[in-house]
């Protein structure tokens, strides 16, 4: 068992890198990214003013270059990914300056030792080499400068990039800043997490708390009227997509009857703003779980050990709740880990419908606005949750059924 968990854990980083790399490729090749947005803004501005070449403003060569650097578009795909991951050093706290006639310049950069402060660096060029010194004339560790020429530069002065060479990626727990709000991605996620966890927690709890007893009840009276009608009902519930129920609920219960607030989420009225979205999120959630439980229980009730237990004179109640139920929970335990990811990432169709500011809506907005740092941050979170969830599933299965050993290949 230990070996198995270790092997699975070793595969996690590999899979994780695979997932994030594929997603990273998406961000590079999808049109409508930050560079194109800036270019489109420029076209609009040009149409208004009809001045062809402007040194500044949206999508000046200067700003385009800054944008490219900010998103790592100035580097190769693999290099940019490695920097995002934190496996390769990238330029941090960078700034571009122009040298004056004497080949000197001054740059004010964020201090890496005292947070929130900045300090001045003097740059001088001798030949092709740039030297950086602080105000007291000493070099500063990790700070470097490099020429950063622009294509079709309207200015003649040499453009220099001043940066700190640092590992600042996922491995250092840095996800970068959101491009829409300029706040750190991690702060954005943290501010949305409680709402998603609230909804996820309730739905997880209710799903298991309702489905398992219901499944047991159905199995005990299998093929009776209750079993048949509840199966029918469960399939009808399964057929209603949550977001469709959401639209219906919004229309009738919120807009027409005013029973529930129509938009957003408010902790002060948590109950009222939870009921409707939660029921939409959960409308189809019971079906599979309940039927799993029912069928698993039915399968187990026909096994030999049940017959033996009966022959031994055990009560029906004891057979079902002590012996059979435990075995029937194995497939249920296997689904538990998968739900863990959902718990964190939220259902973005429901959050979109009800305008609930959870992680799902954050993800949707990040896609619409091509806010890649936020998108990749959320992807990191959800894929980690999923990968860990899978292992948790296996552990749950092993906990419920000591016979199961994953060491042997299946």
């Amino acid at each position, binding site marked *: 068992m230990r070996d198995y968990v270790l092997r699975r854990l070793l595969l996690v980083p590999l899979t994780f890198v*695979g*997932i994030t790399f594929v*997603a990273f490729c*998406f961000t590079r090749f999808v*049109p409508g990214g930050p560079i194109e947005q800036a270019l489109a803004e420029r076209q609009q501005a040009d149409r208004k003013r009809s001045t062809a070449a402007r040194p500044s403003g949206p999508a000046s060569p200067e700003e385009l270059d800054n944008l490219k650097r900010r998103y790592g578009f100035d580097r190769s795909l693999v290099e940019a990914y490695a920097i995002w991951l934190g496996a390769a050093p990238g330029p941090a706290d960078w700034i571009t300056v122009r040298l004056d006639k004497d080949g000197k310049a001054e740059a004010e950069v964020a201090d890496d030792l005292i947070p929130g402060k900045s300090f001045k660096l003097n740059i001088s060029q001798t030949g092709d080499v740039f030297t950086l010194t602080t105000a007291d004339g000493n070099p500063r560790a990790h700070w470097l400068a490099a020429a950063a020429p622009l294509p079709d530069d309207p200015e003649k002065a040499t453009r220099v990039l001043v940066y700190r060479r640092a590992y600042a990626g996922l491995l250092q727990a840095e996800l970068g800043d959101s491009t829409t709000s300029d706040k750190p991605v991690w702060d954005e996620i943290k501010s949305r997490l409680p709402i998603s966890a609230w909804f996820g927690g309730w739905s997880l709890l209710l799903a298991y708390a309702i489905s398992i007893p219901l499944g047991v009840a159905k199995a005990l009276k299998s093929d009776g009227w209750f079993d048949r009608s509840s199966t029918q009902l469960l*399939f009808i519930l*399964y057929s209603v997509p949550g977001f*469709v129920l959401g639209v*219906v609920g919004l229309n009738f219960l919120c*807009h027409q009857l005013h029973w529930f607030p129509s938009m957003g989420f408010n902790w002060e009225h948590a109950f009222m703003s939870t009921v409707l979205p939660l029921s939409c999120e959960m409308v189809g959630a019971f079906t599979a779980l309940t039927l799993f439980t029912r069928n698993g229980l039915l399968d187990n009730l026909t096994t030999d050990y049940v017959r033996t237990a009966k022959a031994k004179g055990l009560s029906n109640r004891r057979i079902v709740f002590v012996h059979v139920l435990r075995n029937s929970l194995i497939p249920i335990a296997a689904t538990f880990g998968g739900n863990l990811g959902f718990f964190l990432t939220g259902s973005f169709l429901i959050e979109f419908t009800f305008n609930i500011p959870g992680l799902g809506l954050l993800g949707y907005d990040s896609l619409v606005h091509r806010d890649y740092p936020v998108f990749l941050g959320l992807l990191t979170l959800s894929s980690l949750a999923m990968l860990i969830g899978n292992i948790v599933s296996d552990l749950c299965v092993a906990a419920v059924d000591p016979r199961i050993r994953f060491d042997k290949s299946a």
Partner: protein
Amino acid sequence: MSLFDPSTSQRFERFRQNRMGWWSLLTLVTISALALLGPLLVGNRPLVLKVDGAYRFPVFAGFISGRELGLKIEGEPNYRLLAEELKRNGRGWLVMPPVPFAPAEVCEVMPEVSRDAEGRWHDPRGIIAEGRIFTLNADGTRRQTWTIIAGRPHGDARLFAEGIGIARAKFADGKVAQRVPTTDRTDWEPQGSLRTQVPSPCPPGLDGHWLGTDESGHDMVARLFGGFRLLLLSALIYLPCAYGIGLVLGAAMGYFGGWFDMVSQRAMEIWSNIPFLYAIIFLASLLEPTLAVLVLILVAFSWIGLAQQLRASAYQVSARDYVTASRALGASHARIIWSHILPNCTTVILTTLPFSLHGLVFSLSALDYLGFGLPPTEPSWGELLHQAKENWAAWWILGPTLFCLVGTMVMINSIGEALQDAFDVRRTQK
């Protein structure tokens, strides 16, 4: 394997015994057959058209210029209006499809108006408070318009010829007050077949729109019908592709196992962890979102689940003795997969089929609902749901869409339930 071997016919009988599933299947097949009729049932071109003694079949012939029909217009006539004109002047007749609107057609809802005893103009909903009444040419352009305030002509009235205004009059309190040019026309009283325009979305029952129109003026019945046709078409692309890939890879993984299985499993784990809707939104913005592209993207993400299920059953079968036996007899891998593994996967295929359809309908609707799906000219249920969300007073958009979508889903899932029941091993053993 005969289609009607004893176990198959036993399963079929059991499937039929599940009344809900059986009737769902019959209903769905009937509706799909009707949907295949397409423009014969729902469309804006007549089935038969007789003008001046000559028969034409525009629903098959396609575009017919107004000139060919002896009208003074170049474009295609609005056949619904032409029908009335032909009736009036006795030049012929035409038969429209039962629903005379095309799914992608933007209709101006123009109910006829009537005048009460006090001379006030009414549309079917009541007195026209503020609006226009007009007469139309067969191509849908206006011939004469009057501005109506509080039921009476007030303000501008115009006369058009080929879309250009040629005469104008000003009304005050229902009477002509001023004319330009003064000589041409003397009679400015509204007469003939007069209509008014109702803004979209228009409630049901006006101008032949049984279920009203949506935000952009599409007829709701035609839109829903078109949406179903699109779903049908997408299923016809989706199912063969998804099952083809899933089957081949799943069977190969289960059969060969080992190294190939291991690598494919990892690749599938990576691919299935990419958030599905995120990836679709990305890819849809990269490629022109046509139906085929959307469906193929869906295939790209949904074959994994199928492959994993098929892998499991292929894995079981490949360990059986008869597979070993045929291998010993020198059968090739391809032959074993084709004649032993795949036939044993039919149960998995059949029982998962309805749930794959469920997923397809869900995903397509969700994408259109979010606004990342088909272009808005295409009829789609998801887009109608989006409109219903934005336009909550328009119950005639939400109600029928809900009925169609949930109805289809319920039928699909009932078939799925019945199939699972019919193929249930536990039942067979009883």
